[in-house]
């Protein structure tokens, strides 16, 4: 490649390259390999602390939810139930609740009525079995309630961590934000393994057994609606909601993303989401967008409706509206 004089090869170099193995070099090599292996073992020692069964062959061989045969899904669910019983002493009623025909869910929130009490954020935690350090830790709640300054709808000057003795405060109004179940959902578009997708009723769900934990969906979401399990979820056994479904509120492993599913284990059974039921002011309206006589359609057709970040083009199924 170049013929600089410095590159002239001395015979010694060649000799070195072909140096035969003798007893001495062999022993030296063997000793060095032992040290290397010992070093690697020492480095990997934390892996011994992995819980037995945390990574099973079944998990590794499992297919994507939408490719699962019914029998395999039942087997996986039985394993999840057994795991919950073993770890928490709670035997959940774990189901795979399918979407209803002719239903597309929509949600509207009355900004005139919301008083910022955060009851919805707490109810969400109780319903969906999120990780928490104590009852007041709502970091993993799917709902973030923003305290906004009157005079504008300006997220930049809003506060999530408001801590006032009473709500509502004068000069403030409140805007709860949760997953908007977008029609053009950026989160499902970016997922490299399709671990999150839109169901036919419009709900964006996550297969916790398929998510690889890259968090690209969190970067993509314009509504800060996704949460990640940075550690094994901490949840007291007494706090576990046993009414669970595979794609929504079942107990999650660490290292996966989760999000609001409009409580699909309730709403696909004809009930309201937990956040709506608990709302003391009746600010929340939930229903079937495909039913022309539904309350949600009445709101969309008759009230002054506001879509958050309409400019991003996500076409949400979550709306805000005003009374007067």
């Amino acid at each position, binding site marked *: 490649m170049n013929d600089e004089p410095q590159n002239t090869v001395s015979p010694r170099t060649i000799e070195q390259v072909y140096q035969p193995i003798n007893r001495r070099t062999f022993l030296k090599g063997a000793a060095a390999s032992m040290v290397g292996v010992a070093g*690697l073992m*020492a480095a990997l*020692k934390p892996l011994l602390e992995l819980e037995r069964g945390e990574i099973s062959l079944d998990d590794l061989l499992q297919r994507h939810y939408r490719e699962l045969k019914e029998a395999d899904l039942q087997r996986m669910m039985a394993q999840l139930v057994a795991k919950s019983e073993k770890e928490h002493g709670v035997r959940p009623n774990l189901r795979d609740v399918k979407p209803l025909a002719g239903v597309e869910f929509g949600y509207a929130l009355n900004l005139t009525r919301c008083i910022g009490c955060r009851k919805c954020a707490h109810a969400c935690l109780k319903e969906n079995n999120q990780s928490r350090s104590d009852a007041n830790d709502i970091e993993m709640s799917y709902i973030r309630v923003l305290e906004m300054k009157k005079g504008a709808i300006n997220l930049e000057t809003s506060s999530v961590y408001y801590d006032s003795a009473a709500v509502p405060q004068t000069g403030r109004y409140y805007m709860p934000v949760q997953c908007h179940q977008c029609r053009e959902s950026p989160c499902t578009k970016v997922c490299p393994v399709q671990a999150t997708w839109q169901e036919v009723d419009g709900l964006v769900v996550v297969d916790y057994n398929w998510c690889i934990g890259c968090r690209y969906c969190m970067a993509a979401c314009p509504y*800060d609606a996704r949460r990640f399990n940075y550690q094994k979820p901490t949840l007291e056994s007494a706090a576990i909601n046993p009414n669970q479904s595979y794609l929504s509120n079942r107990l999650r492993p660490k290292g996966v993303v989760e999000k609001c599913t409009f409580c699909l284990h309730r709403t696909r059974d004809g009930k309201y989401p937990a956040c709506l039921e608990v709302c003391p002011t009746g600010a929340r309206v939930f229903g079937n967008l495909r039913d022309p006589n539904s309350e949600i359609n009445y709101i969309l057709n008759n009230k002054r409706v506001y879509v958050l970040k309409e400019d991003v083009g996500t076409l949400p199924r979550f709306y805000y509206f005003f009374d007067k």
Partner: protein
Amino acid sequence: MRDYLTFLWRVWRLSFQGSGKFYVWMSVLTLLTLVGVHAWARQFVDGLATTGMTNQVSWGAYIANFTFLVGVAAAAVMLVIPAYIYKKEHMHEVVLFGELMAIAVIMMCLLFVTVDLGHPERFHHMIPPFGVFNFPGSILSWDVIVLNGYLVINLHIAGYLLYCRYRQRPPTKRFYIPFVFLSIAWAVSIHTVTAFLYVGLAGRSYWHHPLVPSRFLASAFVAGPALMVLTFQIIRRVTRYWIGDEPIFTLRMLMTVAMIINMFLLGCELFTEFYYPTQHAAAAHYLYFGLHGHAGLVPWIWSAIALDVIGLCLLVTPFSRRIIGLNIACVACFVGIWIEKGMGLIIPGFVPTPLGQVVEYLPTLNETLVCLGIWAFGALLYSWMLHVAIPIMNGSLRARPELKPATL
């Protein structure tokens, strides 16, 4: 086949023969790599809570280093283009080192992405037929293809040329020239696709910006050559392979042009963000001046800007015609771009959050050790490849030592 096995055996033997200094260097790197492995094993058991990342800032040092290193890998074209398109003879002496560097750096990139995963053991979910590959929808799946493709192309070119050299026969052009040209386009693609990872997210206005890919390429073509200039000098000092000054000063010229473009684009960006600041400038405001009393990145970005400016001034003036001046410029540019394109690009994308909250991010010790381990592993890999490649290139390792070494 028998010859190839002999070749591998000799390479294996050669890998463990060297001077005392070589042993010390490789042992230190191995030790640092093992420290990184240990930190990662801890993270694998306890979860990503061992990092400083949160729901609000969901990517951190891993993705920052990944982004920066993709650029360094892409910069191998700064050797390939002059060598193969402009037929600069002196660049042929070093072009292989650039390709080997690309291999080592791409490995680092893949490791940085892997350690960022919450479930690395589910990696096969991305590989059909075991998994579902969201192609072409997800830009991340594009990135997986281009990064691995670039790795394979460079492994082929470097491996083929070295083996021919070892067998003392001239390489057959059609076996590698088409791949050399493919690698040029491919190098541009790896960095562009990596930029599209961010640019494609309309919800993050700091990233949703058409200048990002151009700036990525411009800054990459500074940082990569800067590292090459420094390593080439080490190679010519400590190994029996002489690299003249011409390749180094060709790289200086290329770096200078790229750095001017990079700083011009930075200026365009700053003008757009600050001349008439909109709400979309909040992230830039956080980065450069702090926001609502949070200013964690401010000292970093100003150090980066200072280093960039120093680097640029040295490069455009005769100071960098002397090797010492050039070396200072290279270090300044490399570190400046590492800060600016790593943490300076990734973190403000998350601050403020899409709902306007400011949550700051600081890497933890464990996270830093994982990063350090990957950097050490990259250096280990590159050192090993050089240690094997150089005796082949200068002819001391060849199939039939009784014959004269081939000339390429």
